[in-house]
């Protein structure tokens, strides 16, 4: 098979990255100021015996290497520790949060990709016209806005029209299925729109420059000389080739989606991963923070891997 070792190489790299992230994760929280025991026990004047007991309980009397080894072992078994805030296992907390985050982020991203590709292609095709100017200016404006601030602007705009916080109306008693769905859809609208608008700006700019590059190629000229219709040239000749850089850049922007989700969920009190990170920061809930960071890293690494493999499949020129 073509480039089997390319695929293996990418997968190994992804696994190594996750390993590095795990190690950073382990090391960072041991660099926290103050002794770990006082941090954990939250008792400023504990007796030496209590301290020793806590130390034993959390395995902090062992050497750093032993601790690291135990940490890796537990992680491998899916044990992310226990949240300081609600004493639930971090992994179950994160699972609930992830299920809440996914639909919101997904809707926003799809919205951004569709709108961004559309306006980007139009901008490139109508190069030098007012249409391009308007499309690029709008995109740049949305790209420049701080995510959470845009969210707050939407809250001001839509206050009273759409719900601006939470995931569902808690005062609906025994709602029918359709009311429940409508309620959820109303709640998801603003957070998704915020994320979508911020990403849309970036995607428009990316798609436009990728399209400009392909539109300058000789085969476009050939296609035009053959008398193909504009739409066919755009779709079959230009966009297909422009898809390569677009796919990579969209994958690379996933890291920013993660960041955006944290801000958006904070604004709209959406009970997802981002909100979990925010709450964990406020409550200094280190196990949650650690777990959430690991989850975010793993997902970004995973999508990068997917993008790499996709790129490989899309572009037959890659052989190494």
């Amino acid at each position, binding site marked *: 098979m073509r480039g089997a070792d390319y695929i293996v190489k990418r997968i190994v*790299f992804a696994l*190594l*990255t996750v390993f*590095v*992230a795990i190690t*950073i994760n382990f090391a*960072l*929280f041991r*660099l*926290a*100021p103050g002794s770990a025991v006082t941090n954990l026990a939250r008792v400023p004047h504990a007796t030496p015996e209590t301290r020793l007991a806590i130390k034993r309980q959390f395995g902090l009397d062992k050497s750093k290497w032993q601790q690291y080894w135990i940490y890796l072992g537990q992680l491998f078994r899916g044990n992310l520790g226990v949240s300081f805030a609600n004493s639930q296992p971090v992994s179950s907390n994160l699972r609930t949060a992830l299920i809440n985050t996914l639909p919101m982020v997904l809707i926003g991203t799809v919205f951004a990709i569709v709108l961004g590709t559309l306006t980007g292609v139009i901008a*490139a*095709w*109508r*190069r*030098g016209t007012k249409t391009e100017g308007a499309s690029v200016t709008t995109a*740049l*404006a949305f*790209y*420049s*806005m*701080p*995510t*959470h*601030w*845009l969210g*707050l*602007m939407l*809250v*001001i705009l839509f*206050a009273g029209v759409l719900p601006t916080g939470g995931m569902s109306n808690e005062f609906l008693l025994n709602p029918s299925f359709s009311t429940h769905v409508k309620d959820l859809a109303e709640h998801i609208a603003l957070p998704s729109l915020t994320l979508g608008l911020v990403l849309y700006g970036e995607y428009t700019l990316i798609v436009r420059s990728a399209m*400009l*590059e392909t*539109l*300058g190629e000789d085969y476009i*000229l050939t296609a*035009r000389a053959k008398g193909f219709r*504009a739409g066919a*040239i755009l779709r079959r000749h230009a966009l297909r080739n422009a898809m390569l850089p677009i796919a990579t850049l969209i994958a690379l922007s996933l*890291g920013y989606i*993660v*960041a955006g989700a*944290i*801000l958006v969920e*904070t*604004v709209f009190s959406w009970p997802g991963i981002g909100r979990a*990170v*925010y709450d964990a*920061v*406020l409550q*200094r809930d280190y196990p949650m*923070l*650690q777990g*959430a*960071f690991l989850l*975010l*890293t793993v997902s*970004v*690494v995973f999508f*990068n891997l997917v993008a790499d493999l996709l790129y490989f499949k899309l572009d037959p020129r890659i052989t190494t």
Partner: protein
Amino acid sequence: MSVVLQEPAALDDAVPVRSRRGIVWETVKRRPSALVGAGLLALVIVGAVLAPVLAPYDLHEQVGPVFGRPSWSHPLGLDDGGIDMVTLLMWGARISLVVGFAATFVSMVIGGAIGVTAGYFGGKVDTILMRITDYFLVIPDVPLMIIVAAIWGPSLFHIVIVIGILLWTSTARVIRAQVKSVRERVYVKRARSLGASHMRVVLRHVLPQVAPLLIANTVLTIAVAIFDETALAFLGLSDPSRISLGKMIENAFQRAAISTGAWWAIVPPGVLVAVIILACSLLGGAIEDALNPRLRVAHLSARTFRLRPLVGRGPEAL
């Protein structure tokens, strides 16, 4: 080093000698938006630097009711502490810019050093450094910033360092690529064979060639750094005693400016951040555009269809 010292003299001549002024001129000519960006940025910087002189009121002085409405004496109203918004904006922009510039400086030093070292020495050094860069590129910046900032505790210095040590990756990659191509040029090889030290070659020959690109990258990074500061501040991770633009948004959000209807406390700081980011993007993008020969090949869009001139455009057309 007896290799290619005599051969491509012609190619050496063909490389257009572009002075600094030439690059500035070319940028402006090709992308007038650069002027807009530079103008906006200059305006914000002047306002921020002159805050002690120009600010109409004292930064800590309560001059009216909480969330006072905009009026003639306070064109943008008052914030949650009854402090004049115009004054706050000027001082806030000051802190935001300081964080943006300082963090960018940190990341430019790291990214520049790694990029130059990797590109100049190549081989194993290159491989190792680029691997490290790859790892950093994939790890999501903002969550890591949040964690580090949360662990270290809120202070301006920590924020600068945290942002700085995570933003250098793209710089390192861009610079490395450029250095690799500069290193192969004949005058660099000549300098080496004349006995110039690595240090001298890098400082005298490589860095000046890479400088414009580094500047473009710096301007673009400032935008990201300021955005990150705003985000960290919004999550309550910035220095509570220093009012930055991000801190202003956070304060207004936390003290329920929206439900009070005090839009003037929350709209202006966001607009200002957006203006700064927009200005940096326009300026940085334009410089990058003027420098990147790949982008310079006349983009033949469907409407202005011309044959691409293949001769007489210098080495980029080849």
